[in-house]
């Protein structure tokens, strides 16, 4: 990632997020001219946060989870390419509010300093919780639901899952309509 755009991405994160050594090392990776991947939609801080939420939803077990499968890249690309402007603005602002809320509630200054159990605590509070949804004027439940939908969608589109779990074969060669499971 270009150093200038990396800094630009961070300053877009509404000022309450400060750098930690983790993010600094990510920027420093720019100096190696790494062209591995750079986000188009989320800020750097948001990417770090989202990556961890996705791993909570689809964790590493005896098979790869969200981090190993780099699901955050799909989600970033999907929202960038497919969501309408108003939808994108909603996602970014609601996600930022959610992150800010966690930081303020836990008196933490940096996204990368939040422990995973803390993120999970807030995610599980807002996902599928009818009471929260009823009183939730902050749309946190919606954004958590979107995280989960994107996690599942992206998981089931990875090469690993399609070929190892869902029986996808690029060139089947024939059709059998009566296969014993």
């Amino acid at each position: 990632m270009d150093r200038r755009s990396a800094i630009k991405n961070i300053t877009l994160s509404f000022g309450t997020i400060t750098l930690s050594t983790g993010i600094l090392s990510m920027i420093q990776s720019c100096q190696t001219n790494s062209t591995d991947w750079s986000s188009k939609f989320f800020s750097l801080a948001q990417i770090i946060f989202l990556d961890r939420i996705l791993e909570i939803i689809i964790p590493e077990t005896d098979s790869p989870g969200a981090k190993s499968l780099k699901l955050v890249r799909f989600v970033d690309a999907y929202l960038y390419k497919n969501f309408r402007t108003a939808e994108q603005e909603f996602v970014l602002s609601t996600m930022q509010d959610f992150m800010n809320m966690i930081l303020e509630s836990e008196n933490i200054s940096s996204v990368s300093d939040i422990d995973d159990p803390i993120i999970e605590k807030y995610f599980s509070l807002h996902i599928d919780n009818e009471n929260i949804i009823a009183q939730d004027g902050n749309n946190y439940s919606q954004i958590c639901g979107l995280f989960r939908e994107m996690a599942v969608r992206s998981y089931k589109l990875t090469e690993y899952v399609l070929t190892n779990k869902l029986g996808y074969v690029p060139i089947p060669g024939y059709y059998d309509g009566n296969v014993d499971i």
Partner: protein
Amino acid sequence: MENNFDAIVVGTGVSGGWAAKELTEKGLKTLVLERGRMIKHIDDYHTANINPWDFEGGNTITQDARKKQPKQSRTGYVNREDSRHFFVNDLEHPYNDDANKFNWIRGYHVGGRSITWGRHTYRLSDLDFEANLKDGIATDWPIRYKDISPWYDYVEQYIGVQGRSEGLSHFPDGKFLKPFELNVLEKHMRERISKNFSDGRILSNARTAHVTEGTKPGLGRVACQYRNRCMRGCPYGAYFSSNSSTLPAAEATGNMTLMPNSIVHEIIYDDDNKKAKGVRVIDTINKQSYDYFAKVIFLCSSTVASTSILIQSKSNRFPNGLGNDSGELGHNIMDHHFQVGASGKFNGFKNKTTYGRKPAGYYIPRFRNIGGVTNRKDFIRGYGYQGGANRGFMSIGDSKEEMVSYGPRLKEIIVQPNEWTASMGAFGEILPYHDNNMELDYNKKDKWGLPTVTFNATIRENEISMRKDMKEQAEEMLEKSGFTNVSGHESKYTFGNGIHEMGTARMGHDPKTSVLNKFNQVHSVKNVYVTDGACMTSSGCQNPSITYMALTARAANHAVDELKKQNI
């Protein structure tokens, strides 16, 4: 470049490819003009081998596609990332549908919609050819099934069509290759529908233009590999496209000159000799205008484009467009209305699944208004269903049964096989209403200075009544086949969304009420043939492309005979 030929073919889609093949194989030096860019079979199918995980962000209709293809996007599927390059940029190719929305869905390239079509092929029967006469509607077809039947045989045997013979006169059997197998649930549905309905309705295998055994002529056309990526162009040539089949045949004769990037906008009429003598073309690259001449001209550029060329071909003899003595040119536009049907879940075959991705499921042929107890009071004509049954995988909703919101157990659940589901959607006939029409707006021109098309078409009471029955019958068939959670669906149909627009230069006996005669010749200009969807006198409910192919092959052979006899 030479500009005199024996024949000119305008368009390279389903009809144009056939005209090119037949005319060149009969020895005619033929100029084939295509307004779009070249697409070479296999070389230019850039997305043919892309796997689902290779699409960054998924295979979707992106915001960029919506901006550049706002009208193509209305279909909800044609311009996903894997196929958007085969559909027009609406901003560069505008049309007008302010009065009533019209979805004119197409691409401009060699092969046209023969690359992206749905590949379903169902013959018309005399039930269709006699319908206008019996109902006292529009005008009678000037042909009957016996006239076209040998040509259906001819084209089907050449291109390869898979399907199952059923012995129904209103659903004529073809020259079939072995059918795509029905899966366990589809076979169950076939048995149940046959048993539970006394009106003779059946569930059959869908009939599609796929090679399922052996090979077919063309550029190495072999059997389907069950990838279900047809719309991207098939590197196996396993389904029919002009690019893999008819155009290579034409090229092999040495008699074809293929010119992409050539917009035909007018037929040049020779007032003295009272026949067409050529076409006027704009080169899309250098924007220059050229004239090409031939003894016979085939308009195969698709319904709207062919009709547009005729309308633009004004002269002292034809002030309202070439061949438009009847005033019917541009009128009677039809399509197939659809987006109505039902789906359901099936609690059985729990230990069964499928392997491979067949590109077609089942078809339920028309069972309404075919005589006796099937005749309705609330609508005339009929509809057929396309559908399929499959077994997907669980979703987030399925995890809620276990109160699992996320984590290891969700990860396990979402890759478990789900219950079997099936769905079916009907395609229904639209009657030829004179005031459903297209016309040209000379005040709104495109970037080549040509008038743009204005559409004005709606479905009426007959179609609306039919849609009610389409939904109810879909629900009933699923329920009687043992499905649960049966849910009917109906989305608002926008005219043209069936992508079967047709009828605007219809065939008929009488030049006062039709544009073309029984051989697809313009009544008053017999060396001009129109064999694409524009020629259709009624729409039937059957996917029409095989009919266009058969009519084109028939007309091309007629043209060659007429040339030999010096009748044209």
